[in-house]
């Protein structure tokens, strides 16, 4: 039994794990990635850090990993009360691994928030973060002529990074018109410096930057060859359109925190200023479940610096709770003040770069919303017509969100489409309905049989299927021995009686 298991080795998880281990606790740090660093410190195998902001801070954390047990390439798919962490190790030969710990620190970060538009599933359309990950982790530019679009300051490092690596960036199309940006960054000298730096790079690489614009369609035969870009009016309707030739689109509308593990554990959630579901954490980064802490983007999207601070606070709090190791009060006060300042900045950014609901009007009936199950906007509208006005029923009727990704990609869009069909916007319960994933990662039945809290004989045969709360539906049938876990859960880990539920 370890003192602490930290899930996620991004800025938050690294800071939490190193802080707790330095205080003397027995810590395991589990991460799906091949190298430590998460999204912000994602790096190439031969990275020197020359182009990385804040690389020194990362090197200090990485060098401290010998104080703890670091487990890269481990994908956590379930955490049981008490706590037992179930993971699969290896990127091709999956080995089931379990880790018992008295405390869990959740630092699983976020993924890009995507919005559908006609043609968005053409190859060559990537998330903004995906293009960035290719560049940082693999030193590959996603394409030669790239359009960057969506909303938020994150589009700037993506565009200038691609241009710096030799791609032509045909334009950055920012959906909002963030007037008052200067006022919002006032008092945040570091952020102002960053913004000025990006502005200079846009000029140097001759990248057009247009606010109040969106990519409203992608075109091409088998891959993207052009996009339609529209100028938007105040209501988000397109007023003037033009076609831009490109081979790649990097598009992102902010981020969605990865909450499957805290939701599995029953941690309380809330809706943040950017409309994302986040974990509720107190001043010491404690969630509503005793022994479970959350840090970084799981508690609200706010960038790497905030993740580092929250991670350190979580590590200190765990050390105090488990080992009675009191932190230096002045140091804690400094961290708390820094967290407050960075949170306030993040909130100002969320307000400056909202997602305008006008994106829904730009969909056609045949526009794919759920990429996995190929569910169109028309089918979601039909489901709404049949009374599915919350995302969960919309999902059950239309199958949106039931495929491989379990609604991670389309969950936000489906929530909005279902809720707006009855004239409202989605609330935290709608978002929670699409965030529930009792199995956080696809798991082969064989691995479940080897390790899981589910008893093997119940999985080995074609198991009984019992609707959980009166909702009908098709059973999830494993084909190639891979369990396709729908968001409703393919496995009921605790009672083990009917492991496969209809999803």
């Amino acid at each position, binding site marked *: 039994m370890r003192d602490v298991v930290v899930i996620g080795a991004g800025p938050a998880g690294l800071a939490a794990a190193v802080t707790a281990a330095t205080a003397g606790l027995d810590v395991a740090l589990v991460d*799906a990635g*091949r190298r430590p660093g998460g*999204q912000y410190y994602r790096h*190439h*195998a*031969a990275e020197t850090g020359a182009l990385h902001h804040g690389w020194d801070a990362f090197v200090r954390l990485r060098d401290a990993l010998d104080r703890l047990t670091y487990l890269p390439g481990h994908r956590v798919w379930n955490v049981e009360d008490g706590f037992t962490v179930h993971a699969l190790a290896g*990127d*091709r030969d999956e080995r089931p691994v379990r880790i018992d710990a008295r405390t869990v620190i959740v630092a699983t970060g976020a*993924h*890009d928030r995507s919005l559908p538009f006609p043609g968005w*599933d*053409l*190859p*060559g*359309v*990537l*998330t903004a*973060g*995906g*293009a*960035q*990950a*290719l560049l940082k*982790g*693999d*030193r*590959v530019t*996603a394409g030669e002529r790239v359009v960057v679009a969506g909303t938020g300051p994150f589009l700037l490092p993506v565009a200038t990074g691609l241009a710096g690596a030799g791609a032509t960036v045909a334009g950055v199309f920012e959906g909002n018109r963030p007037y008052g940006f200067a006022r919002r960054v006032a008092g945040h000298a570091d952020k102002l410096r960053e913004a000025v730096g990006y502005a200079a790079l846009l000029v140097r690489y001759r990248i057009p930057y247009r606010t109040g614009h969106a990519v409203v369609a992608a075109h091409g035969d*088998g*891959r993207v060859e052009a996009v339609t870009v529209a100028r938007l009016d105040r209501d988000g309707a397109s007023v003037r359109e033009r076609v831009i030739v490109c081979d790649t689109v990097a598009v992102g509308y902010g981020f969605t925190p*990865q909450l499957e593990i805290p939701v599995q554990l029953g941690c309380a959630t809330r809706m943040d200023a950017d409309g994302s579901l986040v974990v509720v954490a107190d001043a010491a980064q404690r969630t509503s479940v005793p022994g479970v802490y959350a840090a970084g983007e799981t508690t609200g999207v706010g960038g790497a610096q905030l993740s580092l601070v929250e991670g350190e606070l979580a590590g200190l709090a765990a050390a105090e709770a488990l080992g009675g190791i009191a932190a230096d009060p002045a140091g804690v006060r400094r961290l708390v003040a820094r967290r407050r300042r960075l949170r306030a900045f993040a909130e100002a950014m969320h307000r400056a770069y909202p997602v305008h609901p006008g994106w829904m009007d730009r969909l056609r009936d045949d526009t*794919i919303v759920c*990429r*996995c199950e*190929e569910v169109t906007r028309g089918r979601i509208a039909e489901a709404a017509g049949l009374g599915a006005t919350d995302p969960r029923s919309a999902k059950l009727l239309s199958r949106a969100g039931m*495929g*491989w*990704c379990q609604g*991670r*990609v389309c969950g936000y869009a489906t929530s909005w489409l279902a809720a707006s069909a009855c004239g409202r916007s989605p609330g935290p319960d709608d978002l929670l309905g699409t965030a529930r994933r009792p199995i956080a990662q*696809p798991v082969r039945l064989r691995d479940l049989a080897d390790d899981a809290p589910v008893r093997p004989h119940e999985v080995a045969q074609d198991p009984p299927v019992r609707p959980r709360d009166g909702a009908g539906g098709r059973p999830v049938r494993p*084909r*190639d021995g*891979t369990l*396709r876990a729908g968001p409703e859960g393919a496995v009921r880990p605790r009672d083990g009686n009917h492991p496969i539920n209809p999803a």
Partner: protein
Amino acid sequence: MSQIVFEGRPVPFEPGQSIGAALTAAGIRSWRTTRFGGRPRGLFCGIGVCFDCLITVNGRPSLRACMVEARPGDVVQGGGPDA
């Protein structure tokens, strides 16, 4: 430079690169089609979230091309039985 073999054709990669990155660098944008509409799919999220990039490596189906590091001589085909 090391190579993998994608549908019979050699594709170079740098050590540490994912299979998805190697294919993208070689100008290959998609490597499977969807079950219903036969729509092409390649990289989308780049970080293991979307499962668009499913690939078969040395006969092992349904791996994520963005997550699996390329190894010399890997034989790669698109998708999996379900993809």
